[in-house]
């Protein structure tokens, strides 16, 4: 770390940062992601870097990702909601929690998760369809998810009464760490995943 005087010297000396090298590009990406609260779309960064080739860009990202994964680094790169984002390494979570003595954020209720599952896989979908599939009136959970911005109104169904249709949002993708909806496993894949471990798993325990 520098004293202010050194810093000035340093500033005058170092005029060789110009985004030409791959390292400069990585440094630039790290700094813009650091100051951005939201995930940034790769296209915006590519435009700025005058990088016309997606393969070239992906090479930069891969190198950056690799260097983040090394030990001695606490931040990693993540794709979420179609954008790039810096987040802390998952392994550090327990220590972060202790350091900040923060309670884990409240999780969604099973009702909300059920309703979200239906919206995610059946979108666009009406409240009547959701309630029908769950066997339970779902107006309350739909409202709750709307307020959490995990779902949105996406139109009206062309049936009598013109009921509102609901779809998932970008917030939904961010919340579950998905890049886009295609990352959700298909129903077939899902059945496979769960046949391996059919017993109720431990993550349902409320602590």
């Amino acid at each position, binding site marked *: 770390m520098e004293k202010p005087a050194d810093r000035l010297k340093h500033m005058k000396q170092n005029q060789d940062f110009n985004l030409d090298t791959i390292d400069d590009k990585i440094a630039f990406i790290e700094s813009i992601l650091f100051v951005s609260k939201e995930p940034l779309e790769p296209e915006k960064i590519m435009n700025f870097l005058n990088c016309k080739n997606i393969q070239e860009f992906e090479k930069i990202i891969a190198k950056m990702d690799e260097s983040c994964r090394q030990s001695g680094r606490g931040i990693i790169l993540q794709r979420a909601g179609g954008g790039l984002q810096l987040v802390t390494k998952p392994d550090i979570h327990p220590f972060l929690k202790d350091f*900040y003595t923060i309670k884990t954020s409240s999780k969604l209720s099973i009702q909300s998760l059920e309703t979200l*599952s239906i919206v995610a896989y059946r979108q666009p979908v009406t409240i009547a369809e959701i309630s029908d599939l769950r*066997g339970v009136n779902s107006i309350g959970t739909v409202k709750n998810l709307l307020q959490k*911005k995990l779902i*949105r109104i996406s139109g009206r169904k062309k049936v009598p009464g013109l009921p509102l249709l609901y779809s998932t949002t970008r917030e939904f993708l961010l919340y579950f*760490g998905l890049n886009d909806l295609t990352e959700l496993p298909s129903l077939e894949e899902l059945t496979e995943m769960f046949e391996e471990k059919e017993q109720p798993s431990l993550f349902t325990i409320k602590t």
Partner: protein
Amino acid sequence: MNETDIYQVQTEFFEGPLDLLLYLIRKNKMNILDIRISEITAEYLFYLKNCQGINPTLEGDFLMTASTLIYIKSRSLLPRPGSTDEASAEDKLIHTLIEYDKIQKISRLLQEMETHTLLLWKREEVSEHFEHKEFDIEEVSSFQLAEIFLNIVKKKDQEEYLYLESKNYPLDKKIEEILHLIETSEYLNFFEYVDKLDSIEEILVSFFALLEMVKQRLVVALQKRLFDSISVWKNQQTD
């Protein structure tokens, strides 16, 4: 795992009738594709009767399914003169259960993913004390817009409601009051009088009272110019 964890694991809590039905199917080791729905009716009703793990706010939904189950069961016991009602009701319910089974699997997956993303801290998380006063327009949905409008309308309705409810000024009482004032002081400056009133409603009632008194020829009212005050005297010619 501590004791409360164990307790939570052992307690069955059903999110809805389908959740309970699936539980019973699994408990009886039935294959979801070829179950006889009517066979688990008794068990379902047992749970319902004992309210085991039944969310009271969802009781109606549980009862609704119970009636379907009883219907299916009763049809299966009666000789059927070529009716396919029972079969279709049962098929529909089984289909719903298969779909619900998938939903539960997706929910569990989402839950795992949620658990994972909660391990990743984003930059703004600790410093949430500064308030977001601005909204990115791209993030506002039509629902939020509607919600904002609903709140405005509600607030407005409440204002008007409270205002009207505040006091009641019957017209005849007002007439009596004004007549009494005129009789004691022989003359009334209407604007001065109205100025002392604390609600628009009372001012309006007073004005109507004035009009009514003029109409009944109880008083004479005079205004020299538009927006000038109105002077009111008792009408001497009525006697």
